[in-house]
């Protein structure tokens, strides 16, 4: 039997492709509104607000902003997000669209060559290739809960 961890979710933010292990995913949420929740707001962690998930308000991290690509569209627009779990509880990652699911075995993980690495903070160390297209393998701990850029 195939375990959840042996499959990956592929998704996009702008021109960039990303992937993560399915075992890290709680749920995919579409067309929700971001709540202005001052107690959760943390620009250093790119937390842009909150969302209600299973009767709890959880922080929403703007991946576009985390990657230094500018903030996502205003809070009142409907958004797509991945709800993920961490030791501190669930949190949501804003994304543009889900591309699909693929077995991990169909992807090849490659380390970043030194000439693609700028000094300083980053939230990935590997690129996964799927059908000759690159998907950034996100380090979710670095995205939320780790050190800030």
């Amino acid at each position: 039997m195939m375990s959840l961890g042996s499959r990956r979710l592929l998704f996009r933010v702008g021109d960039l492709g990303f992937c993560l292990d399915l075992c890290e995913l709680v749920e995919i949420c579409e067309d929700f509104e971001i709540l202005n929740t001052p107690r959760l707001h943390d620009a250093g962690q790119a937390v842009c607000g909150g969302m209600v998930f299973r009767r709890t308000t959880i922080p929403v991290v703007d991946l576009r902003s985390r990657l230094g690509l500018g903030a996502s569209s205003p809070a009142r627009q409907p958004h797509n997000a991945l709800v993920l779990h961490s030791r501190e509880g669930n949190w949501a990652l804003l994304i543009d669209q889900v591309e699909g699911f693929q077995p991990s075995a169909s992807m090849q993980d490659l380390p970043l060559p030194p000439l693609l690495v700028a000094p300083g903070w980053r939230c990935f160390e590997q690129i996964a290739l799927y059908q000759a297209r690159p998907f950034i393998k996100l380090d979710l701990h670095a995205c939320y809960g780790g050190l800030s850029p």
Partner: protein
Amino acid sequence: MNKRLGLFSFMGVGYALSLSRLLRVVEAGCVYPLPFVPLGVEGMLIQGTELVPMLGCAWLTGSQEAAVAGFQVVVASEYGAMALPADKTQGIVAEARGNWQPEPKSRFGFLTHSFCYQEVSYRMVNIDALAVSLIRS
């Protein structure tokens, strides 16, 4: 043994590099963007199962003018492979067939000499110095 050079041009300027550093020349393919790359890197190429950093046009030429490369010259540096933009490839020539001139002092520490061959000047690219300039950018 006589050293040989690979010659190419980009945006009207000729460049030369040691043939021992030239891995391949390919028709321009998709350059994938990537966040948090060094300043002089435009993105990456996927060649088989290899991620190849693509040098930004401005880093090589110093010009802010937008340019589309027809070819990508893939070279080997001490820090791994990288690709340079090119419009035309102009063959391989033995170093002894031309002569050397020092480059006027410029901000391009990786362009130290010009190789003059058949009345055309080619700026010699020191591949390792280019790689270091990227790492420090």
